[in-house]
């Protein structure tokens, strides 16, 4: 006798009435201090750019200008690299490791003390919900400094039997999706390993990095150990190509990563790349479906989907597909899209006008390719850059929305029948950064997590990060790891 199946298709969607509306609960911006204009942070102080040029950084949620920041040119980068070299050959290079560690601890503590200010500015400048910047970005950034501080005088244990040495000056270029957290991921291990740093934040989100520069100055870190130069692609290229840079670390798109990898070909610069992704999030029929739906939402709508490891390809086992999609649509209807500073907001502003245009382009592509688009009924503010959380149902492997990284709150949904089929589909991408697996069967988890060609795999959870946990990709998602003991290796050489 055939097993009786629940007919999930006829289940009525939940009715959402006004009971789901929350009263506004905006975080105050009164506590923060922003200058009208920021120079570069070079050799321990803020300096006017040699380029004499500035550009504005805007809030993507209000389109209001927040500050002007320096537009670094090759001369600015050169000054920063020289300051970093001087510090490396001087005080920082000669400092006992334990003292070096204590400076990093100080930075962690000062960041914790100013956490609220950092969180508010992060949400203003980048558009991410305050709930995330307050509970995820800033605490993790502090934790990263705290974790690596302790490594500074323990480097002999990184690879027992081999004597570690620092590299010199590290040039670091970070993206706009986790501005402060990425600065922490880059600076903390570099300093712990004994290097000095020239860091460039993304042009749309420079403010928290500049706040971090203030903290670094206030911590009394010797001049030139950390230099922060603001600017766009040309400034980044000047860092990558500077002959005084010994190591390049880049987080960003695969396209730019390839350009950087090519630019340093034939040089002795060491390189780590943390690039794009198109992660599979796989839901088996024996998963705890309500938890899985939360995981799907967290996987793709966290930080507006501006996450390299976002679970942007959903694979649902056919037998539960209707039920999962129904639940997912219901859950999406409850998501609050709007003011990043409102504590109830789930999905904030798209980081920039350009990124919104990219996402909208993919929405059109998806529709034209024949996938079925779904967006919940919700209002978005009239000013600012917004994208409703979006599903594409009935997507197929060959669709561009399945193959290409969109970097927005857009989820392509496919179904599967067997484990082998879903592993094949999940791995059928040039990327290999992350993946998710949802099932209550332990042995199945281990089979699938082992077969997925990805650097980070979340089983029955998604988008979790920790300073002790190595992060990084396979294939075209880059190489090198950030976090944990593994995260020190890109900043050390051994005899």
């Amino acid at each position, binding site marked *: 006798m055939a097993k009786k199946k629940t007919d999930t298709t006829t289940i009525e969607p939940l009715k959402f009435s006004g009971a789901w509306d929350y009263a506004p609960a905006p975080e105050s911006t009164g506590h923060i201090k922003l200058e009208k204009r920021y120079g570069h942070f070079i050799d321990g102080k803020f300096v006017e750019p040699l380029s004499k040029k500035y550009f504005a950084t805007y809030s993507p949620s209000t389109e209001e200008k927040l500050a002007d920041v320096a537009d670094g040119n090759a001369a600015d980068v050169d000054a920063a690299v020289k300051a970093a070299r001087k510090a490396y050959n001087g005080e920082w290079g000669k400092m006992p490791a334990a003292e070096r560690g204590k400076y990093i601890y100080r930075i962690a503590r000062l960041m914790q003390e100013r956490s609220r200010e950092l969180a508010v500015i992060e949400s203003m400048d980048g558009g991410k919900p305050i709930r995330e910047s307050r509970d995820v970005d800033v605490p993790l950034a502090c*934790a990263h400094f705290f974790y690596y501080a302790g490594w500074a005088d323990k480097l002999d244990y990184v690879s027992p039997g081999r004597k570690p040495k620092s590299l010199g000056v590290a040039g670091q270029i970070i993206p706009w999706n986790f501005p402060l957290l990425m600065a922490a991921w880059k600076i903390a291990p570099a300093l712990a390993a004994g290097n000095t740093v020239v860091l460039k934040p993304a042009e749309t989100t420079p403010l928290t990095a500049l706040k971090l520069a203030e903290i670094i100055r206030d911590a009394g870190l010797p001049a030139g150990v950390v230099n922060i130069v603001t600017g766009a692609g040309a400034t980044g290229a000047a860092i990558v190509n500077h002959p005084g840079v010994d190591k390049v670390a880049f987080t960003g798109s695969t396209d730019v990563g390839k350009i950087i990898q090519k630019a340093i070909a034939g040089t002795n610069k060491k390189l780590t790349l943390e690039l794009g992704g198109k992660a599979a999030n796989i839901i088996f029929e024996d998963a705890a479906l309500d938890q899985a739906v939360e995981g799907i939402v967290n996987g793709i709508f966290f930080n507006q989907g501006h996450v390299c490891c976002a679970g942007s390809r959903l694979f649902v086992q056919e037998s539960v597909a209707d039920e999962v999609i129904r639940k997912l649509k219901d859950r999406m209807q409850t998501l609050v899209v709007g003011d990043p500073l409102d504590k109830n907001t789930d999905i904030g502003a798209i980081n920039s006008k350009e990124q919104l245009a990219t996402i909208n382009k993919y929405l059109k592509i998806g529709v034209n390719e024949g996938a079925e688009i779904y967006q919940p009924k919700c209002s978005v503010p009239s000013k600012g850059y917004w994208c409703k959380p979006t599903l594409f149902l009935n997507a197929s492997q060959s669709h561009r929305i399945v193959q290409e990284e969109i970097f927005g709150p857009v989820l392509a949904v496919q179904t599967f029948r067997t484990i082998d089929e879903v592993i094949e589909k999940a791995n059928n991408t040039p990327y290999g950064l992350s993946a998710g697996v949802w099932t209550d069967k332990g042995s199945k988890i281990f089979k699938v997590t082992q077969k997925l060609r990805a650097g980070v795999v979340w089983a029955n959870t998604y988008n979790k990060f920790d300073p002790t946990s190595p*992060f990084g990709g396979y294939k075209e998602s880059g190489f090198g790891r950030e976090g944990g003991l593994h995260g020190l290796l890109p900043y050390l050489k051994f005899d």
Partner: protein
Amino acid sequence: MPRLEVLKTYKMYIGGQFPRTESARYYALADKKGNVIANICLGSRKDFRNAVEAARKAFGDWSGKTAYNRSQVIYRIAEMMEGRKSQFVNELVLQGLTPAKAAAEVSQAIDLIVYYAGWADKYQQIYSSVNPVASKHFNFSFPEPTGVVSIIGPETPSLLGLVDAVIPCITGGNSCIVLASETQPLGAVTFAEVLATSDLPGGVINIITGTRKELLAQYASHMDVNAIVYYGTDKAEIKAVQENATLNVKRAIIRSGIGTPGPELINDTLETKTTWHPVGY
């Protein structure tokens, strides 16, 4: 009347088979006096592509074997090589080495294989970690093979260099395509015969003979190759390898020559995978 000697045909090794080059071309290998020793296959780009296909096919099975099994297979390679020691020595001598040097190189090569056979089920513990995350998760990182690796082997020492290039790579579970020494290719071809009789699945190691000049770009640019290991010090070649590697973010590992044996050579073609498991629900 003396018996007529049977001469050996030197062929390539792809997918566990011994094909001639599809291009049907050859180059003549001469000894010091200029006498032709053998006609060597002048491998083509198409041969390389076929080898990549074979390596990709072999990767799943080889990387999925237990570490203990991989260890035994690699040890078996050493056993098979030991049995053919004199042949390897003769060939090195034929290619210009003194008998003493040739014997030393062969012994060293065999011992190096035994050394890495021992690593096959040990490097994992060296490079893995349980990560004390500040949340209710069990989180650990462990190494996995990078995938298909192309290798431009060293010119000399031709046999020891070949072993230094391919054995750490397959110890880590990768499959590979190696370009043999152009000037001393005989050992590589005989090594293929050792592999074919040593339980190593076909396609795990593929050996192409030919010239760097013709094949270097293809080795570095092929889109289904995950990493390239280059032996040499030629600055232009290194730059070309690194540039071509960018096409698919290939890991480019540059070695100036054979180095100190160690797990680091295995680690060169490993990835780190981190998995998170919730604790408590």
